[in-house]
């Protein structure tokens, strides 16, 4: 991308706007992956770009704004999460609106919503290191190299943690299914 070659120290207003346009989705998704709430994710995304503008000039060595922004977004979202550790899920109004929209079956939507809630709970119960790794890897725009950079570990460690996290999730979900069947 053209903006990736531009060091942030010399970012002008137009370039900053281009940076927002190109990276908003990534920043928003990272924030949403951590906070699980659209309003909080919007706030975090906004704060991320403000920080980028404020402190970008202090880091003349930044050569990859995309990775740097991903890191800032992760930190901002994590700080938000620490302030309010309880997850605030989106209000049901949005789900009701999706139900009313044509083209999708209500059963599927309901199953999706319930499945996602179950997954969120199970990911929330994972050890911190594994939770961080699988949360970041679930963002499709973020390659494993960037995840490793954000977490400060090697690519191999990231892959190992994601594998272990998936294994634990599978075991727990199987146990839940068996429990459900027996009851």
């Amino acid at each position, binding site marked *: 991308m053209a903006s990736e070659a531009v060091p942030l120290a010399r970012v002008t207003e137009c370039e900053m706007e281009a940076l927002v346009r190109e990276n908003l989705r990534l920043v928003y*998704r990272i924030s949403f*992956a951590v906070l699980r709430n659209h309003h909080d994710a919007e706030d975090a995304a*906004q704060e991320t770009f403000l920080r980028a503008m404020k402190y970008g000039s202090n880091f003349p060595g930044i050569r990859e704004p995309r990775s740097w922004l991903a890191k800032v977004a992760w930190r901002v979202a994590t700080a938000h999460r620490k302030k309010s550790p309880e997850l605030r899920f989106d209000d049901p109004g949005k789900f009701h609106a999706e139900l009313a929209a044509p083209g999708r079956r209500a059963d599927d939507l309901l199953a999706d919503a319930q499945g996602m809630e179950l997954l969120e709970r199970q990911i929330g119960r994972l050890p911190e290191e594994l939770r961080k790794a699988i949360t970041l890897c679930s963002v499709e725009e973020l390659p494993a190299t960037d995840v490793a950079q954000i977490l400060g570990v090697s690519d191999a460690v990231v892959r190992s943690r994601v594998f272990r996290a998936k294994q634990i999730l599978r075991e727990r979900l199987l146990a839940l299914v068996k429990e459900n069947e027996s009851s």
Partner: protein
Amino acid sequence: MNHPDERAKHLDEWLGSALERYSHAEPQPSLESRIIANLRAQRERAARLWAWGTALAVAAVLLLVTVAVTLVDRKDYGPVVVKTRNQGAASPSSGATNGASREAHGIAAGPHAPSREGLVAARTARRDMETMKILNTASSEVEGPRLAQFPSSRPDSEQARLLAAYLENVPAGEMVAIAGETNSIRDLVVSDLSVTPLSWQAENSMEEK
């Protein structure tokens, strides 16, 4: 395929797709414009703050310079302060100093006669006071703009001032005449001068003879 394996496979598929959708969220279309507007506002605010900060800093520096210059000027024109030797002396000499001041003001010492050290201290104190008086008088006399030469010129004495006034009032022709007289004073010198003795001196010498 047995039942548990099939179930595990199905669960794997579900987990994979659920994890793909886990962070799949689209930002609202208005978020982009909101963020850009916010960034612009922030930039403008920062620029305004920077301008105000710079202006305040410059004003503070100017104020400091003005105050410093004023203080330096005051220090230059201020009275000369002379510290007397006995001002900062330790307590033993303070008694002597008190005695000295009493003596200086004509107060009797009482039953305790002043010692030699006390007298010396009294003399020193008196001398210091006189010096202070002279310096204060001189500093009060020397007022006005400071000259650009160093050391600055002392005030003229009364005699010098009178002479200057006289020279100012004397017309130019008279000055030339005086100068001419001064030059011809050599004519008044008598080389072979013999003075005859006075009459009573001559009488006396005759009697002696």
